[in-house]
């Protein structure tokens, strides 16, 4: 134990990712028997910070003291040895091992050093699950369990190490109210036993309910650390956002023209039902909803990536028979996918090759690709979209997330797309570049493009849309014009009204 009662003291932590400083001189400390929440917007650096503490990521600069002793946590094994255990945001379980095998992975009860004492393991697993009131058969395969149950198993696994420092990164995102309550009871018990807990969540209610102190991160910097008792929700959110909404969303009024894209009665069992929506020329239309509401799936069908059971797609008033991606691209629809690295770009190819990727047929009708012409075309978009790159030959894998997003946009502009479906175009992008993306979207709309923006960030949807549709459980539950849209109403529609009052608290 350090002289000041701190188990963990992290000082001046710096972490760089290609093209972006993820953490800039961040400090964080943790007392024995406290719950310390870390909050911040997407991309603020929360997960990166705790991954460094857990020995998963190396840092550029900074010091970490454990019990007052400077320690270099070079790998996860050392972190575990020091009593630091983490539940990651994404499931790290092995799907084809059982619940029990996952819980005790890396600290199995052993005989002769390598043979698992299955009887003992089974006993301990039962005991642990029972003590946490998790109703699961320890012999079930993890692959057969829901995401929520998997989250509980990851939690149980971390506890099975008897940690002194427990790190939870968005541990409740897929849990039911009841399960969250059970988890919180366990956290309070651990706290009373003197365990230090770091708790990352974007659910402000939970943070205020469970934690003792809150550290706010923004754009990789620590803004402040406050006692929960001495601060308010408004305060914390202001620190998280840290800027006036008007600066952030440079919206210009537009004059919508002809109807560009129309979906009529789009239906697919288990995905969406009877979705109708319209996007006009020169209009930015937001499609808001919770994760899993079916927004991406619906627009994938409209683009022809997946097939629909019923419904039709109209483009400039004409019905698109049997939509397919190649047809959509030819007719002028562009689709910027949620996972731009996986689905939107060829990471190993150069910037110019990515830019012309969707328009090779039109640029080079004879089938011979000219590098010179490619460069010229790419140069044009580098200028227009202010893409930060040393050269058009740079492989996009080396560009930052925001720059990569611009390349995706350039790709569709180059293909002459006049209808753009943008799925979470600013996810994981730093704030400065976000604003630039918004400006590009404005500019495109002004020049007559029809833009459909799928987003899970309410301020973003409110900030840049002319019109907003809200989806909930596969159905459109609301439509709002810019002037009449309020975060309360939209959240109510997104949650399907019942939980609306609670939900609105999440967004001021």
């Amino acid at each position, binding site marked *: 134990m350090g002289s000041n009662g701190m188990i963990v003291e992290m000082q001046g932590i710096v972490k760089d990712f290609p093209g972006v400083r993820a953490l800039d001189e961040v400090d964080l400390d943790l007392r024995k028997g406290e719950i310390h929440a870390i909050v911040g917007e997407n991309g603020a650096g929360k997960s990166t910070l705790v991954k460094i503490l857990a020995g998963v990521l190396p840092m550029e600069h900074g010091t970490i003291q454990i019990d007052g002793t400077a320690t270099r946590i070079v790998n996860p094994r050392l972190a575990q040895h020091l009593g630091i255990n983490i539940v990651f945001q994404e499931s790290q379980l092995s799907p084809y091992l059982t619940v029990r095998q996952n819980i005790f992975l890396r600290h*199995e009860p052993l005989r002769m050093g390598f043979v*698992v004492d299955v009887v003992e393991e089974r006993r301990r697993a039962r005991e642990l699950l029972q003590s946490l009131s998790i109703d699961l058969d320890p012999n079930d395969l993890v692959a057969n369990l829901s995401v929520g149950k998997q989250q509980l198993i990851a939690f149980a696994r971390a506890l099975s190490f008897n940690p002194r420092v427990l790190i939870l990164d968005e541990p409740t995102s897929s849990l039911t109210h009841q399960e969250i309550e059970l988890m919180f009871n366990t956290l309070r018990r651990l706290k009373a036993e003197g365990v230090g807990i770091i708790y990352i969540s974007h659910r402000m209610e939970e943070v205020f309910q469970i934690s003792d102190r809150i550290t706010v991160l923004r754009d990789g910097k620590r803004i402040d650390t406050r006692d929960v008792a001495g601060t308010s929700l408004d305060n914390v959110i202001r620190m998280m956002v840290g800027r006036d909404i008007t600066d952030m969303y440079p919206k210009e009024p537009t004059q919508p023209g002809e109807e560009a894209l129309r979906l009529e009665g789009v239906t697919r069992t288990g995905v969406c039902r009877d979705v109708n929506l319209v996007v006009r020329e020169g209009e930015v239309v937001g499609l808001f909803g919770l994760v899993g509401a079916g927004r991406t799936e619906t627009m994938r069908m409209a683009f022809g990536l997946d097939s629909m059971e019923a419904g039709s797609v109209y483009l400039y008033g004409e019905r698109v028979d049997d939509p397919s991606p190649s047809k959509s691209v030819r007719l002028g629809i562009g689709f910027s996918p949620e996972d731009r690295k996986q689905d939107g770009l060829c990471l190993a190819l150069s910037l110019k090759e990515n830019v012309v990727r969707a328009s090779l047929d039109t640029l080079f009708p004879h089938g011979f690709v000219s590098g010179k012409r490619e460069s010229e075309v790419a140069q044009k978009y580098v200028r227009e979209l202010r893409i930060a790159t040393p050269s058009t030959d740079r492989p996009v894998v080396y560009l930052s997330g925001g720059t990569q997003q611009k390349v995706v946009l350039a790709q569709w502009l180059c293909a002459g797309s006049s209808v753009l479906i943008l799925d979470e175009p600013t996810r994981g992008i730093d704030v400065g570049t976000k604003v630039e993306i918004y400006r590009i979207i404005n500019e495109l709309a002004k020049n007559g493009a029809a833009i459909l923006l799928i987003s899970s960030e309410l301020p973003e949807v409110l900030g840049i849309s002319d019109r907003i549709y809200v989806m909930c459980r596969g159905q459109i539950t609301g439509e709002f014009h810019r002037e009449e849209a309020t975060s309360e109403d939209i959240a109510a529609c997104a949650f399907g009204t019942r939980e609306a009052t609670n939900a609105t608290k999440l967004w001021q």
Partner: protein
Amino acid sequence: MRPNSGNRALHSLGTVPSITWVLLLLLIVFSIIAPHFGTVDNAFNLIRQGAALTLVSVGMMVVIANAGIDLAVGSLIGLSGVVTAFAIRQGLDWPLAILVGIVICGAAGLISGLIVAKGGIFPFVVTFGMLFMAQSLALGLSRSGSIHIGNEDFSLVNAGYFLHLPIPFWITLTLIVVVLFLMKRTIFGRYVLSIGSDATSASWMGIRVDLYRVLVYVLSGVLAGTAGVILASRVNTGNALIGQGTEFLAIAAVVIGGTPFTGGQGSLGGAVMGALVITVLQNGLTMLGLSSEKVSAIVGVALMVGVILAQSAHRGGSRGNR
């Protein structure tokens, strides 16, 4: 309660794989239509013939479950036979010579594994290189490509009996049980599967990913080496090219046995059954009097169908899970 939960734990590796029914069907059909197929002599012949492929397939299953691949096993079969033959001709006792042959193959696996794990090179490339290195070593050592052994005791490794059953049966059974134990009851099996499903996650959990990646190739090498010894004893010769192509038969056996290429899961029983299906097909078709190129063609088509069925079964299964 207990036996039941034990069964469930065996889920991913131990339940009866669907390929078993194909094997039974083939056995019945060939017994009816092929003269002499259903005799004790031929049953023993099948066992001796199939032991090598079975052993290699078991190793391959472990490698694939670890999200790797081992293309070197075919030439390691040849290398092990040649080294064993060479050692016997140099005057070494045959049991020791066998050991040398197997250890050399384990060492080759070690080298492959180290390059894969430490160098971060694709296993396909590494083991493809090892295929040629092992082959050229075997060819060089044997000069003409083969070394006659001519040792009566050594030939008993293949031809001998224990408890009225051929010795290759016992060797294979023992090694299957050992690998089953490793996969089901030791941390080795768990870490292999965990790394196979997501190596990054596994390292975040504190698993020594490199160590287990290497061990997987060592195991595969040792099993291929053992297979090579059995084959060398069968022809009483160390032949550098005797195992050519076995790697692809083994991969096919693993896949039709229900192990997907994606890693993280594997069916040991399925791999064994897959190897037996291939062996029975080859043997039965030959017994029908078909020429060897016809046998190859039919086996090729059958494997293609089998792999397609196995893959589509898998896709259907994983879709159900989502």
